[in-house]
């Protein structure tokens, strides 16, 4: 094995090693998820010990990289967002998503289209037409960003070329509306979840159905691949969460304990934990290996509508119909801060890539930006004339898009 070069990954912090092994170029990543300001030499010596590719002669280089990651992490985010552009569909929007670089984003709509936009100019690059009902779930195959998947109430999922807008495949097989989907990290599979109580895996290349994941007894509302791509998690209206082994298409664990419908499920970065949000007003944290519930995050007085890890997996943000958002520690399970200010339920929540800010989308027609440490509201993004269904940060954390029932998306930068 021979080390060729280093890559830096800012969010979440990590060093990617490119190396040669038996004539092939390979990469592996050293995750530095809990990088704190004072620990450079400790981190470097730990890396040296655990990673054979990092020899004494490379230590100085690694140290420089760690310092750069720390500097990036300590940079204060002072960016204030201004409303830049407004883009419209004919009917309400459903979901929005950025590609990896944030140069483009996509919007799904009740007008049965998905539109691809250039973020900087606001120009519409493509209208993906062909679905016969609401386009509900959408995704780029990040980090590549050359394909887009759309899931529709017409029961089909379509795979598109992000560059030309051409439709590669239409996936037929679900017996009810498709409401969630995801690419695996390798971009070889698309997973779809449906109101027909199943999830399905589809082959990106051939367009064939690979597997039907059945076992849930009610609608599958959310799903998520882990960072490696060997596990898929699904959350259902049947109150349960299921972990699936992607290679064998078998169910590994059924996570029971919630007393209400599951609104969202997500893996943390290192694939060790799953968070689930539920209409039983709680979130639960589950250990992936054992399938055991390790914590129940309580405090909301109404349904939890969304729950999300930060990129490094240290924090969990929750959004509730009670109009508040909360941030919990993923390790101590304590509620660190409660964010109050929205005048209506909060339907979506996400962390900035840096993890220092949280973005919320609400029924009260505003999106809000919050400081994770203090819980203080840093900014109210006003302008939508109806409730906001979806919101997203780009990778740099300096652009936001919001999608609303008012038929428009807004770009804030």
């Amino acid at each position, binding site marked *: 094995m021979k080390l060729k070069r280093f890559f830096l990954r800012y969010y979440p912090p990590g060093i990617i090693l490119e190396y040669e092994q038996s004539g092939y170029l390979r990469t592996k990543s050293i995750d530095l998820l809990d990088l704190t300001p004072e620990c450079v030499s400790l981190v470097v010596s730990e890396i040296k010990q655990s990673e054979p590719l990092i020899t004494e002669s490379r230590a100085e280089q690694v140290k420089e990289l760690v310092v750069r990651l720390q500097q990036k992490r300590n940079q204060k985010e002072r960016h204030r967002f201004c409303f830049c552009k407004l883009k419209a569909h*004919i*009917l309400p929007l459903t979901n929005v998503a950025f590609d990896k670089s944030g140069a483009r984003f996509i919007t799904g709509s009740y007008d049965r289209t998905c539109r691809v936009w250039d973020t900087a100019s606001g120009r519409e690059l493509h209208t993906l037409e062909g679905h016969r009902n*609401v386009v*509900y779930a959408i995704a780029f195959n990040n980090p590549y960003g050359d394909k887009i998947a759309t899931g529709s109430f017409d029961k089909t999922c379509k795979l598109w070329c992000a560059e030309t807008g051409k439709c590669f495949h239409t996936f037929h097989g679900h017996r009810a509306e498709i*409401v969630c989907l995801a690419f695996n990290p390798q971009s070889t599979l698309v997973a779809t979840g449906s109101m027909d109580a199943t999830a399905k895996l589809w082959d990106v290349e051939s367009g064939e159905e690979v597997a039907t994941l059945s076992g849930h007894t009610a609608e599958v509302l959310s799903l998520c691949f882990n960072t490696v791509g060997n596990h898929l998690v699904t959350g259902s209206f049947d109150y349960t969460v299921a972990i699936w082994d992607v290679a064998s298409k078998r169910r590994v664990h059924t996570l029971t304990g919630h007393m209400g419908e599951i*609104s969202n499920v997500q893996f943390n970065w290192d694939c060790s934990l799953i968070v689930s949000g539920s209409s039983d007003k709680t979130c639960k944290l589950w250990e992936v290996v054992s399938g055991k519930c390790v914590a129940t995050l309580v405090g909301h007085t109404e349904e939890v509508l969304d729950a999300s890890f930060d990129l490094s997996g240290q924090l969990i943000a929750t959004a509730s119909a009670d109009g508040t958002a909360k941030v919990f520690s993923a390790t101590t399970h304590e509620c660190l801060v409660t964010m109050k200010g929205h005048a209506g*339920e909060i*339907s979506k929540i996400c962390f900035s890539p840096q993890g220092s800010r949280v973005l919320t989308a609400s029924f009260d027609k505003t999106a809000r930006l919050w400081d994770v440490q203090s819980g203080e509201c840093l900014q109210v993004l006003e302008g939508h004339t109806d409730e906001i*269904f979806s919101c997203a940060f780009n990778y740099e954390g300096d652009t936001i898009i919001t999608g609303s029932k*008012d038929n428009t998306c807004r770009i804030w930068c």
Partner: protein
Amino acid sequence: MEGLLSILRRLKQPPECEVRLLLLGLDNAGKTTLLKQLAAEDISHITPTQGFNIKSVQSSGFKLNVWDIGGQRKIRPYWRNYFENTDVLIYVIDSSDRKRFEETSLELAELLEEEKLAAVPLLVFANKQDLMTASPASELAESLNLHTIRDRMWQVQACSALTAEGVQDGMTWVCRNIKFRKR
């Protein structure tokens, strides 16, 4: 109450005690005013509906999930998005706008041809009866050829969404026919 999750919740096959009412009609027929009147909300600031509004109301032991869909010409082709699991179709007409009776009649005829709305009971609200120029419900029924409908229960009800007159009578008919349909 709102948000995408609640929209998905309403996509589900509704339980016995819940029904889905679909409110359709041309633009400016008064659908949103009617919806707000049903939900006992303020009706003084209503703008053309660009997408849809959903409200839930209790009536006769049912939870009525009422979907009010925008009626402008360019968004009528999307009405079909909302047909699934409809229990009663409520079609609203501006009774004072005689010039558009033909247009509204054509739109209704198309709806009645829709497979997903087959045998779904139809209530026609002859709205805006508070206006002097409003045609009576009987005249409207005639110009829409309602008497030729044979494949479903139907009723025409004179009303004013503004004053609420006749609205309750219409809803009583709706609830009676849900019972008929659901059991």
